[in-house]
């Protein structure tokens, strides 16, 4: 009943706002009991007043398997008016009464022309046909209308799964994270580390969402592989700037991953066997055109070979797996339900026999103990989304989601293996849990005007550590659970005027740090330390310990110089209420997340970016950005972050800035295709403690760990024959900043190292060449499956790109070592099939 009322209510508002033949009159306002808001006036101003009667054409655009197409264009033949489909393939185009010829197009698909006699509102679903021979090796050009309809956002990269798969990669396994690292403005600490850094932001400043639900650990195998199977991905968009108001909660970027809905016509799939893991994706209808499924799974199997490596590891297991699923149910033309889930885990179960020496001493011993360590970390998400059409102009996506990241370290041994001072068997659990509710409305006012509004609510629960122990000398220990609630209403107005377009958004985010909790208060005349506590306060369940809030304006402007040339400007502010606390070279699965609260403020990131883009056979982009970071969290030198009830005593407030210019060149036509990009950027930070003595480098700016001024990437694709193609990738990057030994001193006859200021030196520059070949299967008539062999070499000339540098004294000599995670050429081969 209430749903019907809501439908009617919203439909009425839509009518009032939109119907250009019926201007809002005092009668309408009185009947609804509210005065038109300023926003409505803006809408009216933007949408204009038309004398002619209009009707709306709406529906979904899919491919020939029923998979909805994101970003497909529906334009009038004269290209004067048009729209693009949203994340669910929905479009809504309002035109004047009469006959219109429309062109529907999407990259990689045949254009469709339809003549519509528009004398009433029409619902029209469109299925586009794949190009007859869509060569993987050739990137098809965006059509003119697609260029015209492009979103006016600076700093947005749309990534196709096919592009990810073509990039030569470690062990031949296509990897989303590795592909992202080849795009302009993206750096990382180094090979094998988890996450990526966007325009000077930390890895915790990336919002990675899979079907609208956040993921907290984006890597398998400690950072070597992405947790997302490319076969399951329909669409990937990376927002580096001009982040739309519907996204929030992170400072620097949004990686929006959409899983495939799957084939609703018949069973189809992809499979692959590689050196590291195998994968299988299946999709098909449960009820044709109504209910369909997609399941995609991967599992690594290098642990299968452990018995061959000897007795020491034969009982150990080291593997990972992931499972992506989706169920799509078209209930009726106005309602669609999507249920999707992701589950992935890394398992490291290590067994050591009794003869292994557990000490750091050289003494031989017969009393060493058996030991088994079982460490596993898991990501799980579940999302339920309901698409509902209130009218042919008002679209709702209602998302409810759940996300959980947890790790368990279990030691069932004689010798223990816990933190310093512990022993015996123990289990350590930690988790992060999110619940999300996000009603997201899109109002298609006219082909030129669109409004998107909604509320994004997310609850956070961080359980840093729960340790159970069988040893009587060690307590069962539980660090307090921390909770937060983030609520953010938002609205974005998308408006086009001839060659000028704008996305003006605003998001107001509110965050409350919620009890129960014990908060420590410190003597402000001293640096925070456990012995400078002057008071504690216990907050009860549900108490708001501290609240924050702020307006996050988002503005993106686009001016079309020509059909193929754009000038873009993006300005945005992003508030981030949770921080990743880590002081290791690469992020670890057991790093701690900390919500803003009494002692930690939310991160405030502001960015302005502008760019020039040209598309075509040879396209190029130039984009520049400047970004500031306030209320960053940095760690003290030597911080003790491991099971710490008063983590704030180890942290320092910080600020920073980043700037850069990104140049990109693409060649999408001809046999030789490829991309080249070069980024010059800097990323600096400084700590801002009021206690001067604890500031890093005496409070001066220093380079962030991922500050790489020069980054160049080149990828080239060339078809050697009809079946064989060559892909190459070359990267050159400035070495990352490090802290290095510069001096020495002696205490009680032993020598110790004096180090430089933090990040005062750099590792050697990084470069690497990867080559792969794709050999397609022979085409046979009536063959329903296709496939290819992929083979090549990662790190062709065996460059050892250093990730870390360490020095030590050995026999009185100071020695320095560079450690490279990959120091040799790695050949690979994999077999992939589609059916």
């Amino acid at each position: 009943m209430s749903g019907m009322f809501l439908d009617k209510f919203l439909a009425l508002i839509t009518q009032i706002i939109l119907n250009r033949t019926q201007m809002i009159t005092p009668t309408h306002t009185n009947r609804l009991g509210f005065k038109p808001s300023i926003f409505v006036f803006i809408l009216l101003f933007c949408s204009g007043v038309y004398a002619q009667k209009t009707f709306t054409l709406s529906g979904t655009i899919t491919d020939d398997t029923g998979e909805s197409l994101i970003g497909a264009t529906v334009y009038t033949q004269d290209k004067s008016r048009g729209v693009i489909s949203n994340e669910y393939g929905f479009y809504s185009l309002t035109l004047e009464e009469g006959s219109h010829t429309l062109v529907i197009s999407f990259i990689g698909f045949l254009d469709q022309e339809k003549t519509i006699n528009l004398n009433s509102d029409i619902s029209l679903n469109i299925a586009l046909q794949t190009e007859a021979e869509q060569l993987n090796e050739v990137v098809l050009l965006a059509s003119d209308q697609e260029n015209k309809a492009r979103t006016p956002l600076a700093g947005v990269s749309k990534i196709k799964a096919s592009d990810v798969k073509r990039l030569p990669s470690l062990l031949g396994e296509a990897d989303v994270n590795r592909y992202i690292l080849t795009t302009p403005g993206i750096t990382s600490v180094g090979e094998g580390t988890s996450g990526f850094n966007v325009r000077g932001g930390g890895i915790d400043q990336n919002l990675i969402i899979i079907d609208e639900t956040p993921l907290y650990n984006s890597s398998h195998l400690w950072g070597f592989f992405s947790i997302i199977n490319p076969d399951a991905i329909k669409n990937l968009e990376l927002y580096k700037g001009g982040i739309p108001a519907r996204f929030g909660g992170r400072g620097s970027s949004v990686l929006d991953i959409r899983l495939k809905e799957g084939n609703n016509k018949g069973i189809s799939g992809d499979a692959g066997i590689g050196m590291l893991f195998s994968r299988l994706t299946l999709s098909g209808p449960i009820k044709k055109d109504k209910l369909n499924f997609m399941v995609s799974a991967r599992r690594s199997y290098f642990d299968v070979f452990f018995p061959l490596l000897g007795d020491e590891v034969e009982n150990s297991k080291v593997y990972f797996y992931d499972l992506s699923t989706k169920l799509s149910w078209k209930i009726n033309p106005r309602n669609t339900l999507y249920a999707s889930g992701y589950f992935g885990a890394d398992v490291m179960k290590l067994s050591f026999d009794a003869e292994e020496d557990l000490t750091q001493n050289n003494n031989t011993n017969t009393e060493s103990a058996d030991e088994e360590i079982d460490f596993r970390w898991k990501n799980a998400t579940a999302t339920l989304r309901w698409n509902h059409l209130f009218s042919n102009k008002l679209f709702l996506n209602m998302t409810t989601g759940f996300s959980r990241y947890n790790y368990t370290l279990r030691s069932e041994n004689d010798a223990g293996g816990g933190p310093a001072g512990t022993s015996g068997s123990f289990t350590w659990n930690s988790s992060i849990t999110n619940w999300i509710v996000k009603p997201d409305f899109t109002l298609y006012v006219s082909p030129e005007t669109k409004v998107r509004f909604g509320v994004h609510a997310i609850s956070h629960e961080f359980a840093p550590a729960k340790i159970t122990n069988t040893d009587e000398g060690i307590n069962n220990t539980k660090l307090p659970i921390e909770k937060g609630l983030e609520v953010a209403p938002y609205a974005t107005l998308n408006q086009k005027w001839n060659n000028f377009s704008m996305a003006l958004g605003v998001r107001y985010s509110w965050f409350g740090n919620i009890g129960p909790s014990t908060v420590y208060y410190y003597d402000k005349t001293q640096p925070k330390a456990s012995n400078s506590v002057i008071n504690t306060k216990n907050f009860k369940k549900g108490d708001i310990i501290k609240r924050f809030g702020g307006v996050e304006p988002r503005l993106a402007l686009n001016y079309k110089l020509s059909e193929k040339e754009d000038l873009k400007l993006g300005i945005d502010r992003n508030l981030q209420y949770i921080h990743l606390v880590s002081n290791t070279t690469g992020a670890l699965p057991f790093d701690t997340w900390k919500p803003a609260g009494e002692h930690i403020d939310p991160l405030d990131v502001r960015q302005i970016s502008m760019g020039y883009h040209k598309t075509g056979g040879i396209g190029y982009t130039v984009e520049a950005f400047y970004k500031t970071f306030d209320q960053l969290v940095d760690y003290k030198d030597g911080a003790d972050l491991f099971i710490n009830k008063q983590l704030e005593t180890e942290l320092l407030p910080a600020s920073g800035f980043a700037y850069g210019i990104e140049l990109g060149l693409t060649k999408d036509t001809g046999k030789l295709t490829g991309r080249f990009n070069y980024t010059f950027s800097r990323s600096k930070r400084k700590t801002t403690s009021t206690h001067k003595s604890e500031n890093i480098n005496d409070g001066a700016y220093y380079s962030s760990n991922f500050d790489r001024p020069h980054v160049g990437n080149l990828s080239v694709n060339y078809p050697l024959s009809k079946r064989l193609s060559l892909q190459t990738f070359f990267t050159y990057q400035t070495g990352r900043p490090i802290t290095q030994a510069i001096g020495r001193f002696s205490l009680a006859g032993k020598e110790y190292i004096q180090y430089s200021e933090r990040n005062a030196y750099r590792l050697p520059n990084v470069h690497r060449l990867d080559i792969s070949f794709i050999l397609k299967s022979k085409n046979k008539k009536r063959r329903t499956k296709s496939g290819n062999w992929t083979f090549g070499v990662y790190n062709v000339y065996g460059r050892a790109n250093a990730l870390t540098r360490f020095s030590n004294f050995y026999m009185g000599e100071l020695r320095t070592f560079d450690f490279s995670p990959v120091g040799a050429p790695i050949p690979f081969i994999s077999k992939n099939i589609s059916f």
Partner: protein
Amino acid sequence: MKTRILLCCLIALIWGCVDKVAIKNEKFTQQPVVVAELNSNGYLRVQVSLTTNIDEESTNTGVDDANIRLWTKNSAGEDKIITDSFDYEKVDNAYYPTSSVETKEGGIYWVELELSNGLSYVSRQEKMPTTVEVSDIAYVRSELRAIFQDEKDEPNYYLAEFSVYYRDQSAFIRGLKVVSNDILFDGNEKAYIGEYTTISESSYYVELNMQSLSNSSYLFYRNFLEQEDLNEGFDDEEGDPGWLFSKPPINLYGNITEKESGKKVLGQFIISSISQKNQIVE
């Protein structure tokens, strides 16, 4: 332990490599190193030295003309000098041992130094922690443990120094040092801190020097021992895949700063309460 787990977990990453490299150190600036130790037995010693360039072999850079003062707060809360008279004795680098000074648990202490170049340094004011009595020394599952009762709710920090001898004390076998906070055994009556070691003898004699530390001294010792471990931890050039996740190296800064600039200097004013226990361990 984390490093150990990581190392094991990275078995598969056989393509990693370690290269010995030569480094340039054009950014070297000489710094003073001040390590002052005061314990509940009234023992005080101060070492002042200077760092040298990494290429220079000699590290004999003791400073023997520093003016040093040990301060405390009297019962009225006023600052009071305990001693500014130090007998100079050169051992390795410059040491300034004194005759015993009177200390008390809960007392506040700090040191000040002036060097001949005009620079002066001061430590943070530190409270003398409460002494902890060790009830037993045990060898359990390859771990040598100091067992004691931890005080509940107070954050406590400990340093255990084990000296292991043959049972008849005819020869020294090895020394072990371990530091810990009490997060995992807060208030536990049988709390322990220990270090893994393997000893082939069926029984042996252990001298234990158990120190309660201040928070800053605990943090200093953690980093200090980590650097010692790095020196002793490997004797070949194979490296360690655990470095992928290691912490960046850090200077051994503590609670002493240059008075004028507020800059931290290398070293620490270590304040500790000491108890000792000697025992035959089976």
